[in-house]
């Protein structure tokens, strides 16, 4: 079911298509009037700040270690990934396990626009106009057994198309997971595109998870497997460095990463003199998701 979460505006309200492709040129023009005419005045504070990053920013600054650890590696290397045909193996505690073709997954889903903040654990952030559907719709499609408590995901591993998996930076395949109530939350989506275009490979084509109140690495890309489990599934960064990356990894300015502060972030796209901005609790989605963690010690379950 679509529409449980309503963003007050669509990307098309914010940035005309011709401009999002080339905001830099616009900025270089440095005409405040020109910018004001592009971004109509918003009424509420929430929408005011949600001006999406440009297409170029979103597709050229990525963490997708299967293609290399450099921020521009995914853009340079992900083009060779075959995304058609694509299917997702659904197994574990589900009523209808099987291999679901990409078309089967899309069947009957409402593709919505969701403009979300994306906060990377490395303390940078973007605003991304995703297109996708709620993960709950897919879970309903495959039928979740009552004993299931978690959802686990895996990313494609294909060494001949993914130069980064030659190095054991992480244990491949990349793995992520959510508690079932997090997975069922209306903010949690499976994204298939951005800016109304099919998902670029470097952003996790053809289908990826987006959980906007968690650090970006939870939003696993290029998903080939979804498993319903009773136990908390192992997740890649937690397996690699358990003291630095927890299972939950909710955006939380009061719980620092052991090696750096999470109190502030830099919004990508501000250029050489861009200042850090305060990081918001649950990445600004506190109102929507805080209930999920009522009574939990978030410094312990980081």
């Amino acid at each position, binding site marked *: 079911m679509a529409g449980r979460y309503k963003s007050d505006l669509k990307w098309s309200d914010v940035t005309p298509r011709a401009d999002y492709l080339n905001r*830099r040129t616009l900025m270089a023009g440095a005409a405040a009037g020109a910018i004001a005419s592009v971004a109509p005045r918003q009424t509420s504070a929430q929408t005011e700040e949600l001006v999406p*990053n440009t297409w*170029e*920013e979103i597709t*050229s*600054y990525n963490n997708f*270690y299967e293609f290399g*650890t450099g*921020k*521009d590696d995914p853009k340079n290397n992900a083009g060779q990934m075959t995304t058609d045909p694509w299917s997702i193996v659904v197994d574990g505690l589900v009523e209808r396990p099987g291999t679901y073709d990409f078309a089967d997954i899309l069947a009957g889903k409402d593709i919505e626009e969701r403009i979300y903040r994306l906060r990377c654990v*490395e303390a*940078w952030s973007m605003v991304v106009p995703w297109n996708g559907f709620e993960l709950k719709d897919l879970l309903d499609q495959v039928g979740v057994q009552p004993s299931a408590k978690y959802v686990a995901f895996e990313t494609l591993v294909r060494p001949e198309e993914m130069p980064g998996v030659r*190095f*054991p*930076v*992480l244990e491949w395949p990349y793995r992520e997971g959510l508690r079932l109530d997090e997975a069922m939350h209306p903010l949690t989506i499976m994204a298939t595109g951005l800016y109304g275009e099919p998902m670029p490979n470097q952003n996790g084509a053809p289908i990826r998870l987006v959980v906007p109140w968690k650090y970006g690495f939870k939003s696993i890309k290029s998903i080939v497997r979804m498993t319903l489990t009773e136990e908390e599934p192992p997740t890649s*960064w937690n397996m*690699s*460095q358990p003291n630095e990356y927890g299972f939950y990894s909710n955006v939380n300015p009061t719980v*620092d990463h052991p*090696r*750096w*502060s999470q*109190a*502030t972030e*830099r919004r*990508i*796209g501000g*250029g*050489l*003199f*861009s*200042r*850090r901005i305060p990081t918001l609790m649950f990445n600004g989605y506190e109102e929507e998701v805080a209930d999920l963690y009522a009574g939990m010690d978030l410094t312990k379950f980081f």
Partner: protein
Amino acid sequence: MALVTAINGWARRVPKWLLYLLAVAPVVWVFWAGATGVLGVEPIKEIEHRLGLWGLQVLIASLCITPLRTYAGLNLLKFRRPLGLIGFFYILLHLLVWLILDVGIISEIWKDIVKRPYITIGMVGFVLLLPLALTSNDWAIRKMGAAGWRRLHKLAYPAVILGGVHYVMLVKGWQIEPILYLGGIAALLAMRLKWRKRQPAPGAA
């Protein structure tokens, strides 16, 4: 060893000031590239990381001078001071970019230095380089005496080790490149240990 002779002859003719001049060019370029979008959409981190890496690379190059002379007979000694100063200059800029452009909030800077081990380690490395940069001139050598000056400049070894550790610690996961740098530093220092053992112990002669 015609090649060694040729390089030694070439090294004699290349003036030191040329190195200083060449060292400024990438700095001008990196800030220009950051300001014009050539470095991508997050220029601050990119400039910071490049300056830090260049600093480490140049300091590692300065550590190569002695083993190159010992094992290959190359005499590049005249370039050791320029390399040390250029490395320090890059590290200083790396620190300034972090302080001013990256963090920019005084309270956060101090918290980072005391709370983040990799930043603490980087800062200690920088502090160790300070007296070396300040005494990298003939006047200081005369004033301190050659032996004392040489002893002080052994601080370059721990400083470069700390720089390599700083790099290994700041990346996510176990990435190959920083580990190779640290391995290279360890190898360059290990070569010195061997070389020192071959020398007669003081007083043995």
